[in-house]
């Protein structure tokens, strides 16, 4: 598995290696060129020195040379070499080191001396300078010595042309260049090793916050979702990531909490009636002789059965909405009639609580929607309003057209709800009473309303204002719940 540390280390090392190699090559090239140029310049100077010692006169050429002046040409070991020719190829002079052998010539011109590598007569690698020149006559030399100016009346036509080759072993130069190569290679290798160590430290330190974050996330589980990742001191690059992760963790924690609450509530809603059923039946069976108790027990069992049936029906309706299994059958619906019909289901309960119904829906308000599902929505909204509305108050149902479609709201007065309850009002099994003591309600009515609204593409909103709780449904005319 590739790691950021590995990638950064490899990338930096390869990059550094390439830079060091290129830098070393350039440095080596510059030094070698400079050294060879100096070497050649020294060789050429030597050749010119010999040239100045060459004179001509009376149709012949001679060299004013002795081994004492330039002892390098007479050494037994690693000597230098020179050879002087006339243009016709006859040898004028050779260094003593050359004996009877010749140095190779390559035909340098008067203006351009030639420098090249060669193998010396003793087998060593060497380098030679070849120049072509006209030796000075004795008169010209005297004039030059007196005036330090060349005489203006010499005629090259009358002068003899000579060729001089001076050769010198290049073992010192090669050894020095070799030392430079080795030094540069060692320095480059050392720098690469140093860089590797530095990269390891720097990359390690640079990636430490990322490693810390990884370790922190590794240790997190469902129990620690409430904790947040530390933002203080985090590198700027990680701040957006940490912020995003903290946001996700908060949402995950909320989901987990809701899931736990859902499980606990579902357990309560199912286990409590089951416990009631079991206790009632077992007690009744334990004393079968008490017939009046049997009658009462059977009546209670029936009531519990009906409540459980309602719970199961609601749960199934929710499950079908979730799975989008229920088909939407659209037809024209007169909203006022449908609302009045839905109210009749709860009107007796409302009367018992002294609650009135105010239906404020225009006669001509027609919707194209699923009649059955909208009726179920209204029934649940009215049942909720009657169950939790203050006794003696009124339930108001208001329908109206809006620029984008229609709005339908059901409101009732309440003394129990607070603003913080609103975000959870459509949650499944949510009840204001955490003890869930009231066996009549399971907290599924508004959850079913929410699911059905989603199925019918209706918007929903709950608000609380001055002790009045209101749920508003909105629909667009262009959708399935369209307005006529």
């Amino acid at each position, binding site marked *: 598995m590739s790691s950021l540390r590995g990638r950064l280390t490899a990338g930096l090392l390869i990059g550094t290696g390439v830079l060091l190699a290129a830098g070393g090559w350039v440095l080596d090239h510059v030094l070698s060129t400079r050294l060879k140029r100096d070497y050649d310049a020294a060789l050429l100077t030597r050749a010119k020195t010999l040239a100045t010692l060459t004179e001509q006169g009376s149709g012949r050429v001679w060299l004013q040379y002795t081994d004492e002046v330039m002892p390098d040409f007479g050494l037994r070991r690693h000597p230098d070499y020179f050879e002087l020719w006339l243009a016709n190829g006859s040898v004028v002079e050779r260094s003593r080191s050359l004996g009877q052998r010749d140095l190779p010539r390559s035909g340098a011109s008067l203006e351009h001396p030639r420098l090249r590598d060669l193998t010396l007569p003793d087998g060593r690698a060497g380098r030679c300078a070849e120049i072509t020149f006209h030796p000075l006559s004795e008169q010209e030399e005297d004039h030059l010595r007196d005036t330090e100016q060349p005489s203006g009346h010499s005629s090259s036509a009358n002068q003899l042309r000579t060729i001089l080759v001076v050769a010198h072993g290049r073992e010192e130069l090669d050894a020095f260049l070799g030392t430079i190569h080795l030094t540069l290679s060692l320095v480059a290798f050392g720098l690469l090793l140093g860089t590797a160590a530095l990269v390891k430290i720097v990359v390690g330190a640079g990636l430490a916050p990322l490693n810390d974050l990884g370790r922190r996330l590794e240790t997190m589980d469902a129990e620690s979702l409430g904790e947040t990742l530390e933002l203080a001191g985090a590198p700027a690059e990680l701040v957006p990531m940490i912020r995003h992760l903290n946001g996700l963790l908060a949402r995950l924690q909320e989901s987990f909490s809701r899931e736990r609450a859902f499980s606990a509530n579902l357990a*309560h809603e199912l*286990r*409590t009636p089951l*416990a009631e059923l*079991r206790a*009632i039946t077992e007690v009744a069976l*334990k*004393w079968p002789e008490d017939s009046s108790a049997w009658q009462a027990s059977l009546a209670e069992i029936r009531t519990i059965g009906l409540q459980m049936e309602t719970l199961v029906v609601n749960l199934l309706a929710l499950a079908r909405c979730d799975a989008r299994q229920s088909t939407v059958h659209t037809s024209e619906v007169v909203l006022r009639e449908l609302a009045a019909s839905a109210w009749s289901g709860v009107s007796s309960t409302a009367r018992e609580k002294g609650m009135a119904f105010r239906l404020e829906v225009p006669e001509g308000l027609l919707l194209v929607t699923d009649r059955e599902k909208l009726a179920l929505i209204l029934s649940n909204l009215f049942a909720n309003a009657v169950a939790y509305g203050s006794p003696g108050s009124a339930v108001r149902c208001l329908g109206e057209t809006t620029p984008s479609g229609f709005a339908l709201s059901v409101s009732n007065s309440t003394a129990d709800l607070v603003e913080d309850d609103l975000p959870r009002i459509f949650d499944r099994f949510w009840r204001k009473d955490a003890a869930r003591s009231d066996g009549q309600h399971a907290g599924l009515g508004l959850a079913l309303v929410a699911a059905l609204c989603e199925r019918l593409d209706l918007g929903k909103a709950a608000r609380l204002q001055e002790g009045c709780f209101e749920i508003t449904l909105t629909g667009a005319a262009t959708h399935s719940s369209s307005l006529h």
Partner: protein
Amino acid sequence: MRLLLIEDSPRLRSALQKGLSREGYAVDTAQDGREGLWLATENEYDVIVLDLMLPEIDGLTVLGKLRGQGKDTHVLILSARDLVEDRVEGLTRGADDYLVKPFSFDELLARLQALVRRSYHAKNPHLHIGELEVHTAARRVTYRGRLVPLTPREYSLLEILVLRVGEVVSRRDLWERLYEFDSEAASNVVDVIVYSLRKKLDPQDPQSVVKTRRGLGYLVEEAAP
């Protein structure tokens, strides 16, 4: 034996009260945590049956407050919460037992009997005192090898005296263990039950098992070695 049942479900509360009363327990009931806490603080119970999700004050808070007041009455939690964490939390907060809803009525009875025995440091459900044998699990009494048919109240009274063998138990104490908080039973009802019990145990020698300590109460003496 006197129990306090704190349960918000009216149907479950009613069924359990009915069943437990028929088993001879004196059962006081409370429908929310506040009332339950008040009853538990004001009275002495052998066992408190406590629901967790209660209106007003939740069950764990009730339990915490009772333990905070130094009340060491045995508490059996009866809850729909079945997670291990819930049970662990209930037991670590001071409960003595935990039963998940739905439950068997017989299992509840057995656990209550076990807690009652623990209240009197009696581990064996078969209590032997001389020729008297009390099977607390089956709620059956034999005397001199003969099965004695007792009413639930008679059995409960005998069980109290046997569990507190050698100790004089006052009429007031017996009344409180046999009757509910709001019972209108007359104060001499204990004497009536003792009379009936003695007749059933040994009509020839009524005081052979349950002795009277005039002005103090009743006792069952320890058997001679």
